[in-house]
């Protein structure tokens, strides 16, 4: 009897501690959401309960600047992020099949090169890339934001190779007996069986493109081509902001796609991270 009481006490302390920690951690996010509903005078106060629920903040914020509303910026972000995601995931899957399943001369060599590039920061190549895209006349278009994503990302390839290697080889052999070649095995056997890895990669790819600030900052000049990240940074310019509520409102909206996807697919992210980190 005594043991179970101490256990219960321990368990209560545990959950109280975790929840307190969680509240502290989520304070900035909750504060942002709360402040997006507050009146102007109150917008920067620390309280998490807004003095009023002003939907007007959102309506005003949505107006954006000039004659461009946030609808344009969201549309731009969606176009960029979805096309980039499709390209990156499909091509990563192809490469993963090549590395994970097909035996060919030079495979280990190229695979180790790819592993090394996992550690390679892309900021190092930003200048020559910029000059290259400048030469091609791609500045101020979506091309430099989308086309470089039509290459596999080493991190995704690595994740998918783990998956491909985990599939029983008997699947391929059975398919081969049924007359499948090396190409149809990819479409009929591999792709349907690595769906979880594809979803994980797609979510990350979408997230990273959606939140990317660096690339649009370099390449996009016209306001009508701004993605949300760039628009928000301009909208929240400390020298120009007068309407805090609207700024917090747009910041909140910019994170909505992230939260919504997370709510439905969090399992894939949590498991994807765990496998990528371990089986190295």
């Amino acid at each position, binding site marked *: 009897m005594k043991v179970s009481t101490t256990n219960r006490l321990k368990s209560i302390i545990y959950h109280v501690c975790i929840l307190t920690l969680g509240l502290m951690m989520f304070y900035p996010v909750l504060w942002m959401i709360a402040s997006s509903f507050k009146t102007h005078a109150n917008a*920067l106060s620390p309280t998490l309960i807004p003095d009023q629920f002003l939907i007007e903040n959102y309506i005003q914020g949505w107006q954006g600047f000039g004659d461009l509303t946030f609808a344009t910026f969201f549309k731009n972000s969606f176009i960029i992020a979805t096309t980039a995601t499709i390209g990156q995931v499909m*091509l990563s899957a192809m490469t993963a099949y090549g590395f994970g399943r097909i035996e060919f001369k030079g495979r280990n060599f190229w695979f180790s090169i790819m592993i090394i590039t996992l550690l390679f920061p892309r900021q*190092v190549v930003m*200048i020559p890339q910029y000059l290259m895209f400048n030469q091609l006349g791609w500045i101020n278009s979506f091309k430099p934001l989308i086309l470089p994503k039509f290459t596999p990302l080493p991190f995704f390839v690595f994740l998918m190779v783990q998956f491909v290697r985990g599939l029983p080889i008997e699947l391929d052999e059975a398919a081969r007996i049924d007359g499948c070649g090396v190409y149809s095995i990819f479409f009929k056997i591999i792709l349907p069986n690595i769906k979880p890895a594809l979803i994980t990669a797609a979510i990350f790819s979408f997230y990273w493109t959606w939140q990317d600030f660096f690339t649009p900052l370099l390449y996009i000049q016209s306001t009508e081509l701004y993605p949300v990240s760039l628009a928000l940074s301009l909208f929240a310019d400390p020298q120009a902001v007068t309407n805090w509520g609207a700024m917090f409102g747009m910041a909140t909206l910019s994170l909505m796609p992230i939260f919504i996807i997370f709510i439905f697919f969090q399992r894939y992210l949590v498991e994807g991270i765990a496998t990528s980190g371990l089986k190295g």
Partner: protein
Amino acid sequence: MRNYVNERTTLAGYIFISPWLFGFFAFMLIPVLMSLYYSFTSYNLISQSFFIGLDNYKEILVDDSRFWNSLKVTFLYTFTALPLRLSFALLLAVLFNQGRKFVGFYRTLFYVPSLIGGSVAISVVWRQLFGYSGAMNDILIGMGLLENPIGFIGNPQTSIWTLVLLAAWQFGSPMLIFLAGLKQIPIRLYESAAIDGANWWQKFFHITIPMLTPVIFFNVVMQTIRLFMMFTQAYIITEGGPIDSTMVYVLYLFKQAFQYSSMGYASALAWILLVILSIMTFLIFKSSKYWVFYENEEGGI
């Protein structure tokens, strides 16, 4: 059937990895070599560019105090944020590895900040939270920890720490990796330690930590590089200031290239960055044999 290598499979192999090969050459190897070439020139987008040998490097290393400052700031940021982020990640991973109720939910919840921490939205929030009239001052004054408000962002003494705090806040992915690592430690190790009368701390330091060193190693490598590359937060929250106190390396590189248009000079900075990162990674890998423990070592493979 399993291990056949012939021309047909080799061709198929190269066809399937061709997207990666293309990306590797077009967006990595060739640009890196191009930037090496530019780093020896005075290229600046406006006037004609000249080959000037090692002049850029000489100027950076000898005359450029802003370069040395940015290096100092970046190292300070990286090596304070790294232990904070990783110890936070480990602490929570241990807490969530106890098989209690709701741990799956907690684990997911605590992962969220690392998903959004790099976004413009959070940077904007952080700037207001720690600003002179921001909420953090009200909270600290309310708790009696502070008498007068401080402009955390505008003060060169404190500005970098707001960025370090934001970095520590994003401990989610190393936490998940630690958790996965903890799950792989065989229960029997703890059981036999318990029989020997070991307490929780002894188990933690003599079983958990040594068994986790490969995962710690992985996290150290990945997070060091990630922190070293920080840009968005410094650009939006502090704009590198005040008086360059948060002018991290990539931000300085960006300013040289795209505000002063010194492409040649910035290319040299990019190459120095690449060298620094390679040395750091090499050192971490080298050091690993002294502290990373692989289970199959004793038995031999």
